[in-house]
């Protein structure tokens, strides 16, 4: 099997009896055909290293097989011990977790069947290394830079953390100032102090730190219009709109504003006030200068003539700025649900039906009423306020969102508390679906109740007008009675939904979105900041509804993730796809079929991003021209491993091959670690992806003596559905080769559910017995 000119060394580890108590090592040594065969008590020890190295160098070994524990425990160790041999010319036969630990029960001195299996496993490894090629691990170094898209509290926090770690950071904000929603929120809730704090006072130091950090470049009036990813870096194209006011020259004197006669609704006050066409977004904005809203400007030139600093010029054009960065953090935030989509609440019909955001502005000292709490219709302090929760949230009717927006309960309680403290005579009723105040917020909720805020459980049906004032019609579902609540002001707690910027940026970066159009994390449980695009992270309300504290947490977490990549680069297994450009005709089929989004066309060539390619081989199958291959000769290696397993198969003996990927292999190790058992007939081959096991491999194995093939796949794998679907085709092919298609088994595998995998091995083994009996 091994070509004559390749010298193979086999090193067998006794593992202090863990292996040698069950396996007859002497018989193994006698049965193996190799140039060097050594055994040692602890191969992983420093002495073991000496033995291996001496033989590799002294006997000029070309290939090495280590028969010991699982790759999970010591792959890196032995890859280092075989140096100067290329680490990928060494293979480990797992004779502990997947052999001696699962077949230990025996009356003899040694378990003979398990000993046979060890010989088979070593032969399989010899087969595998005989076809392996030297490859070098790929280390991708990323530039020491990052782009943060979105200049709200999440984006600023992320940028600040990156800047402080010495990473060059571009903070890209579409509007004329950084600050985001937090700048206009007014007071923010603070559960521990049971008090409300000034949002801007908390935001300002962060904003100043961002501005003064020399590693951060703030780009306002700018948006990412294009993004390309190449190994470890992103090429971005940023479009910057002119401010028409030179920030360097502008002294913020405001003389220009007085002469401008255009009036435009001011978004910073939720349109409750007007601003001029030349304006400053808010007092503490950055850059601290005026800006012209060119869409609403008639270019009369009055402001230009008025400006003593000559800072204004209308002859400016959009600028396209290319950036190359190592990573990106998407912090593009949210917008609020359109209250007109719930016409029954009369947002457009009644002036005194407002949103919580507008109430925040009305209560803000820098807001339209200078902090005076009043009805918009008549300027009087409302006596009765009714708040309606879940407007657009927890709503499965058309246009609604099924999710809970998470912060609205606290926002309503906060605004209610502020009102109650300043205006104790005002009655406040909050109509809620459920009050959700987890953790410390529960205290805040109790505090609100104690201050006399009333709560009615029920989702109001509509807001009407009766005898000159508003009425909110609601069923009190606790008392089970219909109520008509009088109100001078009705406040709608509108849902948080992804901003337009979030939708746009998801498309530009090709990151997946959840069913609700938020940016989706790679794994919502354990990878809360990574996206399915390597090197792109998400923070804040772009990912799901959350409060300021959670946004900052996620922002700093994503900054750490960027720092990990910047500091160490990314080491990648080298078994990735490779394109022969001579043959490739750029049909693009491979791009379509790649579930890992690692392929693209750049400069008239297929570009494969090594960071995201998993080596699954899906593209190989799709490529009509056979222009794609996977580094490392994996196809041949699978064949020769199969041949190794089936070598010297005795009549009546049963050999089943189980192909498992990383997850399945770890689950199989867990069977051994927990000392469960399964039949000796099961021989496990580890593959990069079970997708690499082709019909030809399976047919070959069955034809050359395998009694059964077991394929295990983790259902969370991107390729799972496809592989499951392919099984039908392969079974048909087996049938066409006059073999029983039931000899192929396919199963889901999970790391913690190792006992299930053991059971499936046992079941499959007895099923093969039945099939074999039938065949006789």
């Amino acid at each position, binding site marked *: 099997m091994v070509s004559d000119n390749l010298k193979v060394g086999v090193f067998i580890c006794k593992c202090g009896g863990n292996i040698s108590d069950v396996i007859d090592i002497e018989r193994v040594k006698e049965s193996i055909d190799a140039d060097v065969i050594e055994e040692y008590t602890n191969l992983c020890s420093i002495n073991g290293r000496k033995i291996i190295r001496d033989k590799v160098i002294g006997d000029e070994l070309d290939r090495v097989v280590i028969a010991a524990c699982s790759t999970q425990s010591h792959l890196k160790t032995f890859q280092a011990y075989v140096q100067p041999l290329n680490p990928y010319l060494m293979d480990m036969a797992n004779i502990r977790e997947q052999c001696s630990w699962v077949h230990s029960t025996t009356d003899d001195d040694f378990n003979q069947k398990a000993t046979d299996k060890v010989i088979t496993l070593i032969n399989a490894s010899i087969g595998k290394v005989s076809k392996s090629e030297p490859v070098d691990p790929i280390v991708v170094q990323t530039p020491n830079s990052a782009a943060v898209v979105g200049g709200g509290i999440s984006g600023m926090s992320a940028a600040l953390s990156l800047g402080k770690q010495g990473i060059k950071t571009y903070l890209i904000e579409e509007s004329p100032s950084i600050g985001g929603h937090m700048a206009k929120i007014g007071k923010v809730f603070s559960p521990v102090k049971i008090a409300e704090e000034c949002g801007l006072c908390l935001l300002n130091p962060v904003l100043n730190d961002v501005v003064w950090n020399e590693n951060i470049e703030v780009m306002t009036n700018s948006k990412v219009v294009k993004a390309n990813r190449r190994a470890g870096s992103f090429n971005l194209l940023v479009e910057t709109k002119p401010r028409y006011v030179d920030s360097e020259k502008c002294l913020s004197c405001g003389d220009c504003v007085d002469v401008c006669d255009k009036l435009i609704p001011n978004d910073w006050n939720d349109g409750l006030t007007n601003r001029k066409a030349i304006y400053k977004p808010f007092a503490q904005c950055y850059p601290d200068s005026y800006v012209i809203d060119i869409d609403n400007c008639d270019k009369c030139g009055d402001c230009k003539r008025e400006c003593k600093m000559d800072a204004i010029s209308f002859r400016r054009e959009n600028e396209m700025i290319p950036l190359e960065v190592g990573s990106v953090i998407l912090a593009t935030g949210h917008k609020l649900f359109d209250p*007109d989509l719930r*016409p029954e609440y009369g947002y457009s019909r009644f002036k005194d039906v407002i949103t919580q955001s507008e109430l925040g502005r009305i209560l803000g000292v820098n807001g339209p009423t200078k902090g005076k709490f009043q009805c918009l219709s008549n300027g009087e302090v409302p006596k009765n306020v009714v708040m309606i929760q879940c407007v657009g949230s927890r709503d499965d009717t058309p246009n609604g969102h099924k999710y809970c927006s998470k912060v609205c309960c606290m926002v309503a309680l906060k605004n209610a508390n502020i009102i109650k403290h300043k205006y104790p005579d005002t009655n406040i009723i909050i109509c809620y679906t459920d009050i959700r105040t987890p953790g410390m917020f529960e205290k805040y909720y109790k505090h609100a109740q104690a201050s006399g805020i009333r709560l009615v459980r029920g989702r109001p049906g*509509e807001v009407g007008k009766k005898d000159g004032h508003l009425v909110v019609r609601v069923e009190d579902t606790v008392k089970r009675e219909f109520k008509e609540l009088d109100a001078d002001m009705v406040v709608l707690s509108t849902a948080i939904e992804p901003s337009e910027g979030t939708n746009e940026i998801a498309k530009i970066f090709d990151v997946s979105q959840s069913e609700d159009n938020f940016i989706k994390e790679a794994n919502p449980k354990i990878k809360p900041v990574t996206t399915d695009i390597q090197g792109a992270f998400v923070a804040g309300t772009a990912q799901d509804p959350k409060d300021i504290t959670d946004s900052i947490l996620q922002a700093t977490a994503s900054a750490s993730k960027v720092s990990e990549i910047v500091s160490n680069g990314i080491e990648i297994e080298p078994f990735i796809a490779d394109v022969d450009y001579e043959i490739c005709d750029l049909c693009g089929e491979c791009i379509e079929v790649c579930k890992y989004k690692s392929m693209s066309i750049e400069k008239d060539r297929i570009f494969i991003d090594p960071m995201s390619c998993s080596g699954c081989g899906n593209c190989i199958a799709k490529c009509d021209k056979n222009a794609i291959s996977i580094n490392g000769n994996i196809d041949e290696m699978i064949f020769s491993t199969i041949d190794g397993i089936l070598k010297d198969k005795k009549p009546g003996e049963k050999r089943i091959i189980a192909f498992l990927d990383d997850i399945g292999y770890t689950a199989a190790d867990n069977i051994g670690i927990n000392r469960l058992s399964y039949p000796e007939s099961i021989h496990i081959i580890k593959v990069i992806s079970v997708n690499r096991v082709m019909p030809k491999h399976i047919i070959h194995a069955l034809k050359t003596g395998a009694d059964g093939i077991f394929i295990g796949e983790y259902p969370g794998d991107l390729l799972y559905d496809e592989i499951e679907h392919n099984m039908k085709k392969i079974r048909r092919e087996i049938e066409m080769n006059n073999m029983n298609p039931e000899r192929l088994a396919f199963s889901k595998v999970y790391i913690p559910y190792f006992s299930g995998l053991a059971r499936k091995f046992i079941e499959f083994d007895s099923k093969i017995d039945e099939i074999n009996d039938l065949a006789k």
Partner: protein
Amino acid sequence: MKQIPDKNILLFKSCLVSIEYPGVESSTTFVFDKIGVDYFVSREQTCCTGLGHYSDVFDQFTTTVNGARHFALSHKLNRPNFAMMCATCYAINKRVANLLNENDELRDSVNDVFDDCGFEWMKYEKDDITSRENIFHVIDIFYSKRKEIAENIKYDFSDFKIATHHGCHYCKAHYHDTIEGVRNPHIIDDVVNACGVETVGWYDFKRATCGNGFSQRFVHKDLSMDATNDKFKSLKDKNTEILIHLCPNCHIQFDRYQPYMEKHYGEKLDIINLNIAQFLAIAMGADPYNVVGIQTHTVPVEPLFDRLKLLSDEDKKMIIENVSRKVDLDNSADFNMEADTIKVDFKKGAK
């Protein structure tokens, strides 16, 4: 917007229409003929069971077997597109179609009944009829034919205060199929609008029930009448003269019970009730008695005719132009029916 058919239509007879307001059916066929809708009314049709079903007389299985029979009938007649005059027929048959398509076990049981009775031709196969593509309310068809409606208008209603009431079983039972607003229903307003008339639009309790509630009117009469009263009060606040609806149940509640309400609450109402088909028929010049059947109404409809004016050619031309523009706008992409408040302003000749 979903595709609304104008051919191969089975105009589904309604018990309440036939018994209480037969003019609704004759008005519907009158209007259908004018606006070019291909329909047929079958004598083989029965009740949908709706009234009985909601009063706990017929169970869902009986209703489903009955519905499946109608579906088979529609295929036999090659008229698989149902147009309902009654919101309850609409909701009941949509539900039956969904059940038959989604519940294999139920479908088998229904087919067993047909086998037992020797009615093999009635057996239902999955997706023979789909709720969204085959079952419509007459209002849907009117809505899709607004341009044709505008072209056939003879009389000017623009001096009347007209309000609309959208039946619960049209808006609230299958809201994914409802056209022009669930939370702010305005499909009748849009059709009335196509006759060059501005409606009252939104009024307090617009979305609320008429109060009928099938058995509720009899077992919880106070509750039922209170709900009707809420609506009447609000309509009165808006000085409503004509109330237009799309369901005979609502029609009975507002028309037959109006004298009772007036007596009970001590207030004169005088709100004329018309089904949308009756309204269109009058606007198109139908005979008030032979076609519209106003003699069957409790609240007299006659006063309306004293004030009705013929539409001038000039006004008609403007209406046709404006409606055409509005229909094209509605059919354009990205149009949000729920948030729509755009109306054609006729008198000012809006551009």
